[in-house]
């Protein structure tokens, strides 16, 4: 019996125009493990993350969550135990800070409450305490998202992910729209929360240095294939050269 949290078994996805986004990709994620997906643009990282939560239909292969295949009813179970963080934050920009955080738990709120816009008190309190946890305690709760900086928005994205108390967080390039300093802060916040709450993270990244300091394990992808899958400490320069064509890419990304 394998005790991994999430397993992906030889999945394939071909987009229109014969573009192979995923080609025989297999990987496992263990409980409390931070895994970084590394690769240049178009390597299939986003498609992989989307396919896990069923936003992209796979052509072949399957996704296993706690050793059960994620199809039909099980997809709902998986979706209730994952949270997602995005490159462009994907917050409701015209809504307030607190409402966006509470959206992470919207599936557990009854319909009439949503229609009447009356949220349960405990969810509100939880959202406020999470705001402090992600380092935004001085922020006005009713400020609109569109008036916040990128770093603040991503912190709210993290708070929205944490409020559902997930077992695994899927992050799709969470820091590529942020400046280097903010990127470091966001990733260390994510790492800290993951260790605190025992959450696994699968995170796609561009920057090698960030991935090295962030992840326990790094998976390199190129053209829809996994090139290497190694613990961070075993990673060598040769591996990185395999996913980035030349030195410029390496430092640039």
């Amino acid at each position, binding site marked *: 019996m394998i005790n991994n949290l999430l397993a992906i078994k030889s999945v394939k996805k071909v987009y229109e125009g014969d573009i192979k986004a995923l080609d025989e990709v297999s990987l496992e994620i263990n409980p409390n493990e931070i895994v970084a997906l590394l690769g240049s643009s178009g390597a299939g990282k986003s498609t992989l993350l989307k396919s896990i939560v069923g936003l992209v239909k796979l052509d072949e292969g399957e996704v296993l969550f706690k050793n059960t295949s994620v199809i039909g009813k099980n997809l709902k179970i998986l979706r209730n135990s994952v*949270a*997602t963080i995005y490159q462009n934050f994907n917050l409701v920009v015209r*809504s307030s800070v607190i409402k966006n955080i509470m*959206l992470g738990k919207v599936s557990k709120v009854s319909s009439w409450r949503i229609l009447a816009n009356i949220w349960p008190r405990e969810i509100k309190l939880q959202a406020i305490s999470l705001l402090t946890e992600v380092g935004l305690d001085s922020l006005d709760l009713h400020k609109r998202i569109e008036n916040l900086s990128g770093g603040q928005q991503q912190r709210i994205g993290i708070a929205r992910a944490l409020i559902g108390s997930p077992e695994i967080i899927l992050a799709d390039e969470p820091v590529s729209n942020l400046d280097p300093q903010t990127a470091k802060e966001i990733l260390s916040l994510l790492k800290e929360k993951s260790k605190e709450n025992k959450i696994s993270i699968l995170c796609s990244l561009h920057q090698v240095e960030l991935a090295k300091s962030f992840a326990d394990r790094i998976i390199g992808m190129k053209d829809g294939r996994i090139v290497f899958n190694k613990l961070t400490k075993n990673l060598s320069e040769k591996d990185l050269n395999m996913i980035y064509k030349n030195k410029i890419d390496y430092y640039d990304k």
Partner: protein
Amino acid sequence: MINKNSKLDPPFSFKTLLILLLLFIMLFFSAQRVGVPDIFIRLYEASLDVVGIKDSSKIGKGLSRISQEMWPPVVESRKDINLILNFNENDLPFFSYTESFMEQSYEINPDTLLLEKIEEEVVFLVDPLGYLKTVIIKIIESIEIAFWASFLSIILSIPLAYYSARNYAPNRMIYYFCRSIVSALRAIPELISVLFMVLAFGFGPIAGIMALGLHSAGFLGKFFAEDIENADKGPQEALIALGVSKWKVLTVSVLPQVMPQYVAYILYILDRNLRMATVIGLVGGGGIGQELKGRFDLFEYGHVTTIILAIFVVVFIFDQLSAKLRTKLIGGN
């Protein structure tokens, strides 16, 4: 590398010129068919008439009778006292007074077989602002029609919009079905549909409300659905990945995005319905239009002027109000 031989597209080509020429020729023939030159000829004749070079013109003939009777607008109402039950000369209504004049008529005397002139005194009860009151009551009815029609259209368009948004319709069939309903509602002009509604509901405001409501439901349904389709996909994807049901995604992530546009659409529909509510009365939809049509057919052009001025004032006031409301609801960021 930049290819040195590559050229930018020219701003226009021979083909564009050809198409323009073809369009021009088509316009020329179409203008002749529908009589566009007549506009200029008639206006030219009329201007000669005004200056005095020409004796008469078609426009002058057509408008001269009306234009003399249209001014001043009639605001008073007068009624023959013989038609008023229990008329008491010592207890007249507030601000009213009586006016009498001699009415002449001719009758054949059966004895002499000659026409004889008969003079008779007729007394009228005059209410100095009576007609204005009637117009105000009628125009309030029109405003009510507009509001109820807009309300009806909002109620109808919410489910229509949900099911005719491509990304929220449960399946293709329902999507096409709702889309076709929306198009059909929009395709039938109010002036036509009110004719059917009069057959179904009888003359009066209900026919107007139904006709306007159905037509504007078509508009709102289309606008609402297209905004739902074009809303930012990111937040919706994020919530779907968390296992949130479709309509909850719609309420919490799409509605906040599209709300400003929706307010703008609803205000537009209100504005439109207000203008149309004055017109549909012409064909039996109730409100001020019915009064307008009646007075026009009785050649009472002074009354017509009053009605037109009243409509103008109401539309103008509503324009100002809706502009203020719009900035308050949308501009306040």
